[in-house]
């Protein structure tokens, strides 16, 4: 072995010693460049990543609580139980908030439409239609100053809407001022209304 071989051997030894450090550096640089995709990969492989039993149980409990809370809120909304924020709101305002329940306005434009009914024997009149999910509690008509007159104004999205009145929670009544729409599903006619965009 001459002096040149010895030099080469020493250089190789230095490089061999440095290899692990270089690999870390390369890995770090790649990690920085590819950081976003690595984060996605971590998220995608999360279920197989190391995870404590306590954390898993906590997650399960949180999921259950969230589920029950959501369900309870929906039940309360459907049954007309006033949520805290709605407690003082008048019937008409409640009705306005309920409108997008079924047919939302994609262009965020609605036209206020007044519904009226004259029924001197009615004690309670509800407006039901495709715009409020046919809910009998969502939109109640208010008695007018003249005996037996009822009315409510609701914002409707452009298009064709079908609706009816439910008097005293029992009698199904079409609107005498509007054309009727046949109902092949259930056999009771609805009233029909076309609303144009404002």
């Amino acid at each position, binding site marked *: 072995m001459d002096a040149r071989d010895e030099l080469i051997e020493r250089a190789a030894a230095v490089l061999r010693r440095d290899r692990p450090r270089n690999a870390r550096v390369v890995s770090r640089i790649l990690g920085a460049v590819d950081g976003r995709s690595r984060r996605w990969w971590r998220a995608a492989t999360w279920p197989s990543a190391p995870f404590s039993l306590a954390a*898993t149980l906590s997650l399960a409990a949180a999921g259950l609580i969230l589920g029950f809370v959501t*369900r309870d809120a929906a039940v309360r909304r459907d*049954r007309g139980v006033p949520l805290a924020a709605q407690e003082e709101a008048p019937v008409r305002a409640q009705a306005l908030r309920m409108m997008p329940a079924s047919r939302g306005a*994609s262009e965020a434009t609605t036209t206020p439409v007044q519904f009226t009914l004259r029924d001197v024997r009615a004690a309670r009149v509800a407006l039901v239609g495709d715009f409020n999910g046919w809910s009998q509690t969502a939109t109640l008509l208010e008695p007018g100053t003249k005996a037996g007159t009822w009315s409510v104004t609701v914002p409707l999205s452009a298009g064709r809407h079908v609706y009816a009145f439910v008097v005293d929670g029992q009698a199904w009544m079409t609107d005498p001022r509007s054309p009727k729409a046949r109902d092949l599903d259930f*056999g009771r006619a609805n009233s029909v209304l076309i609303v144009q965009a404002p």
Partner: protein
Amino acid sequence: MKLRRLLLLSLAPLAATTGVRAQAARLDATADFSLRRVVERELVAARAIGLPEGLLIAKANEGIAKRATPRRIADAVAALGKRLQVARDQLAPNPGEDEIAAGADALYVGVPAPILKKMRAAWPNRSLALPLGVLTELVAKGLPANRAAQVVTDLMARGASNVQLYALAQSVQGDVAAGWAPEAALDLRARGVMSLLPPATAASAFTNPRRP
């Protein structure tokens, strides 16, 4: 590791069911247990393919309000689910919920599904809720679906506005109520709207196919 996976696997359907249950809670409180189960099943199916679930609940509530039998309500909800799917597909690529609902209504009165696609082609970037509503009402008033669709799509392609389509529907509705034959009323009123529009362009040629 196994316990963790088991828990995660059991949570996934629970989360989905909880979402559906929250929706199903909007069902009328008087709905019986069997109807609730059927509607929940339909909701799960609708959610899986991205259909608006609220419309299915509304249909069930309509049946309940009309005191229909649970069986009839379940059938109506299932049928609506199918119509919503067809409407959504025909009105692709990005129909809004009100458009899907209006499309399903059009199919309900007998408008052929391909008409919806033609209407989307005529108005690719505008809401079809009103034109579909006008078409539905014309067909519901007794006009042949293809004739009514041809008039409406032609007006759309020629640049008719929502206001003009609305006026057409109102006029025909009034004429029919006054005793006119629906087709005569539509022809007369459509000519009136056409006279206000610019002449036909190549864009509207598809609505007037050449006849042999």
